[in-house]
């Protein structure tokens, strides 16, 4: 018997249309509703059947799962990808290490255990402090690390005495290790414990079980590739959380191995060339944009960071006046000084404000009409009449003051930007700074002041509102080496799947070239750079003498100390911190260049004396090594 009887109405009040057939419509409606009711009843029965299946037929199974032996999913962290140099030398490895861990809840008398353990395994002050901090921060049932990196002897001693220390256990795991230590600290970077901010960003499922994450350098930039995909195992655990049985196991997918573009031998040579000095060296292969060396000195040992650095050591690094944690190559901002003169020269040629043979008279200073201020040349007695090539070779300031005045700040801003100044190179490393390339608009926005003509002159010799990183200097040298082609610098050469051995190589990324089509213009600017090192009167002719190959370079000196008008100060009078920075950009050989360099030596006084010899040293080393390699095969 139906719950309710369908009723039919012969007439309905309301606005029925003339052709509507109410009875037929109602019949249709009622049939449809009955059909739907049948459908709903069937679905409801299906649901009840499912519940019967789960709650009655399989009740025991699920009771087991939920009460006695709870099913738990344990993550299997993936093995982090390794990092290799160009020649296949390991830069970042995973090493098995033993850690002594503690679950406070399971230690009945923790104070006594710790006292007795102290006789077996000793902790230094830093380790004790770190352990106490971790013990206080974590919950009673969380694992706390007592000591990392146990020696084999410590492992053996503990194993014998294990019964005395309930709650303590030795855990073997893989730890990141950087065999070459501080040499690659600023390039490869390092991993460290995952912090709160990173926790919010990462995929919690995939990092479940992972303790470390890339913090700096390649380790940070390529975190996604290096990390891999976590696996898991379904285990049955009892109420105490002890694993009883592995039900199912899905292995982790290891992270990708990375092959970098850097040459360890060149890197080592660059590190030793900077020994005892603060500065940075970046070497780039012009044909590809591959970074061959990337040094920021002083550096630090990245291995200290892997398992959590001690507060004492970290403050020492942080507060050191030499700032070893600071990545000068990527983030150090220096006035590029005279290193921009070749770019200024080619801009002057391109816009037609200077011809190849146009001479400018240098009396040692230049004065803007109507102003008393003398813009001085570094050569206070003057260079006499100089043409473009000589102006570059001898780094004549007056020539470039005049060229800058004729170019104007707008055209300078446009063309120097094409050489990568004032913007990031987009290298595949985190935290790169883009430096500063001023314009009228920039000054109005940031200083609320108009652009003054004198500032154009100062900008013309790379001082004033102009800052660049050593990476940008190397990038600019690469653009000259390539005669205007712009390649994005990169440090990752290829990615290798450790399971299949399949290697995927990255293609060099190009940007639109410098819009100076004339080969002759490039030739003139490069001829000037060649004269710098191997000409008769070049500023760095002393370092270029005797080279087996032709090369090009440009010195630069970044002033830190403003010298009052009409005074000369000898550099020796200044304390070291106030001495000028020495800069040098170069590439070699002159034809089909294989290496371009950007070098900054802080407080190195002058580019020609401090920075240029380093370039020669590295060129000799690199080009001879390459020739040697070629000879071998």
């Amino acid at each position, binding site marked *: 018997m139906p*719950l*309710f009887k*369908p*009723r039919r*109405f012969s007439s*309905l*009040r*309301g*606005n*029925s*249309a003339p*052709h*509507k*057939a109410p009875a037929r*419509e109602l019949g*249709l*409606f*009622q049939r*449809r*509703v009955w059909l*739907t*009711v049948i459908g*709903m009843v069937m*679905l*409801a029965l*299906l*649901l*009840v059947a*499912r*519940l*019967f299946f*789960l*709650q*009655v037929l*399989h*009740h025991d*199974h*699920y*009771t087991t*799962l*939920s*009460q006695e032996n*709870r*099913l738990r*999913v344990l*993550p299997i962290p993936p093995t982090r990808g390794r990092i290799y140099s160009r020649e296949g030398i390991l830069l970042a490895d995973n090493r098995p290490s033993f850690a002594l861990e503690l679950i406070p809840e399971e230690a009945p008398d923790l104070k006594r255990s710790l006292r007795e353990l102290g006789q077996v395994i000793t902790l230094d002050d830093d380790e004790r402090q770190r352990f106490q901090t971790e013990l206080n921060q974590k919950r009673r049932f969380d694992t706390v690390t007592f000591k990392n990196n146990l020696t084999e002897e410590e492992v053996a001693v503990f194993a014998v005495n294990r019964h005395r220390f309930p709650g303590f256990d030795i855990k073997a795991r893989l730890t990141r290790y950087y065999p070459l230590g501080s040499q690659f600290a600023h390039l490869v970077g390092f991993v460290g414990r995952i912090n709160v901010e990173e926790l919010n960003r990462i995929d919690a*499922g995939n990092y*479940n079980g992972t303790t470390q994450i890339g913090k700096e350098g390649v380790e940070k930039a390529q975190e996604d590739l290096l990390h891999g995909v*976590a696996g*898991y195992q*379904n285990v049955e655990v009892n109420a105490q959380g002890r694993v009883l049985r592995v039900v*199912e196991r899905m292995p982790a997918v290891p992270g990708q191995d990375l092959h970098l573009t850097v040459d360890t031998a060149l890197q080592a040579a660059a590190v030793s060339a900077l020994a005892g000095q603060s500065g940075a060296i970046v070497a780039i292969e012009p044909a590809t944009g591959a970074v061959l060396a990337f040094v920021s000195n002083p550096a630090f040992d990245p291995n200290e960071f892997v398992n959590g650095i001690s507060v004492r050591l970290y403050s020492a690094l942080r507060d050191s006046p030499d700032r070893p944690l600071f990545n000068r190559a990527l983030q150090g901002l220096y006035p590029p000084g005279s290193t921009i003169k070749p770019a200024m020269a080619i801009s002057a040629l391109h816009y037609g404000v200077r011809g190849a043979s146009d001479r400018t008279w240098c009396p040692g200073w230049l004065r803007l009409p109507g102003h008393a201020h003398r813009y001085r040349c570094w050569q206070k007695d003057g260079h006499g009449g100089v043409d473009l090539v000589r102006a570059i070779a001898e780094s004549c300031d007056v020539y470039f003051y005049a060229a800058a005045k004729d170019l104007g700040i707008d055209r300078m801003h446009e063309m120097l930007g094409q050489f990568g100044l004032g913007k990031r190179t987009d290298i595949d490393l985190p935290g790169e700074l883009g430096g500063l390339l001023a314009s009228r608009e920039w000054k109005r926005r940031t200083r609320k002041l108009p652009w003054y003509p004198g500032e154009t002159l100062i900008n013309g010799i790379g001082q004033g509102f102009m800052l660049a990183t050593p990476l940008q200097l190397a990038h600019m040298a690469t653009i000259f080496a390539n005669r205007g082609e712009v390649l994005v610098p990169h440090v990752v050469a290829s990615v290798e799947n450790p399971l299949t051995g399949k290697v995927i190589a990255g293609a060099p990324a190009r940007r639109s070239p410098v819009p100076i089509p004339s080969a002759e213009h490039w030739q003139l600017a490069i001829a000037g750079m060649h004269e710098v090192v191997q000409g008769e009167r070049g500023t760095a002719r002393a370092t270029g003498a005797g080279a087996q190959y032709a090369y090009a370079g440009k010195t630069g000196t970044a002033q830190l100390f403003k010298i009052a008008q009409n005074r000369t100060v000898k550099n020796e009078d200044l304390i070291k911190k106030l001495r000028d920075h020495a800069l040098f950009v170069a590439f070699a050989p002159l034809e089909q260049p294989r290496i371009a360099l950007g070098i900054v030596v802080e407080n190195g006084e002058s580019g020609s004396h401090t920075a240029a010899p380093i370039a020669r040293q590295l060129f000799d080393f690199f080009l001879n090594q390459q020739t040697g390699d070629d000879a071998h095969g």
Partner: protein
Amino acid sequence: MRTASERDLLTRLHIDGALLGGALLICVLGLVVLYSASGQSLEVVMRQALRMLLGLGAMCAIAQISPLRLARWAPVFYVIGTALLFAVFLFGTGRGAHRWLEIGVIRFQPSEIMKLAVPLTVAWFVSDKILPPKLPIIAIVFVLILIPGAFVSEQPDLGTAILIVTAGLLVLFFAGLSWRWIAAAAAVIVVLAPIGWYAMHDYQRQRILTLLDPAKDPLGTGYHIIQSIIAVGSGGWSGKGWLNGTQSHLEFLPERATDFIFAVYCEEFGLLGVLVMLAAYSLVLARGVQIAFAAQEVFGRLVAASLSVTLFIYIFVNMGMVTGQLPVVGVPLPMVSYGGTSLVTLMTGFGILMSIQTHRRFIVES
């Protein structure tokens, strides 16, 4: 046959006793299980009870309005609702999905309005047409349904979008949509399904894949389903007892106060408890269908049938999700899951049913 003046008190107040009783029974069950699921938080229970009172108020208020007036106002609500959806599309707030609109201190989901406005509008539109509807009518109805449907699925809230579209289509179905059209639509869906697969958001695709094989992703989405099924299955005939559900209290079960509250209920009250809850829902549903049969206007019966069946879909989709038969689509269990917006919408729907029942012009002996 009695006249209006002779009706009993509840009918004079335009309240339907059976519907009110069923709804209150479910609400009480909901508060009982919520107390357990919330970790015995009286504050959460009080807040939910307050929302229920608000919902009851909305229900009684709506019941006072005659279906004729509801029909007249339906298109207005439809236009306002669509405009608000458009506003959400432009300025919506909310984590991940843009569903909320903030006006001063009031924060609400315009998609909730459309759950009622769409079936009402479609019913209003077809009620004075010749039924079964002809092609032009069907085409217009499709546009009426798909505009809000598209906005809501773009938020993205696929679950609600499907419910809105379904509520509208149900009206068309009850209006006598020809089987030929239904078959044709089914064919189109079969053809378009693979295309839709590519248009879906990753997380939506993930949910469907996880349903097919929950063990595939035990750390992520599959975890919900596995733990939920364990909770349901371990409940047995009579359950572990109120406040004794280990799955929920040991925090194995996610979303236990909202979308997965039914799992807590199953774990603590067992199959017998589930049958009691199903009986309470059946009471409400049966009364809804009865109201549809008894309705004297085309508009009223279409709306009553559509709202009742939509309520069933809610219940079925949520329970199907908790028991691992349907994908995790984020549909709350009506009047039981913690949360205010859908509760008020549901109660308002009951108010509409009551209005249809109590404003009949010719009361046949009942």
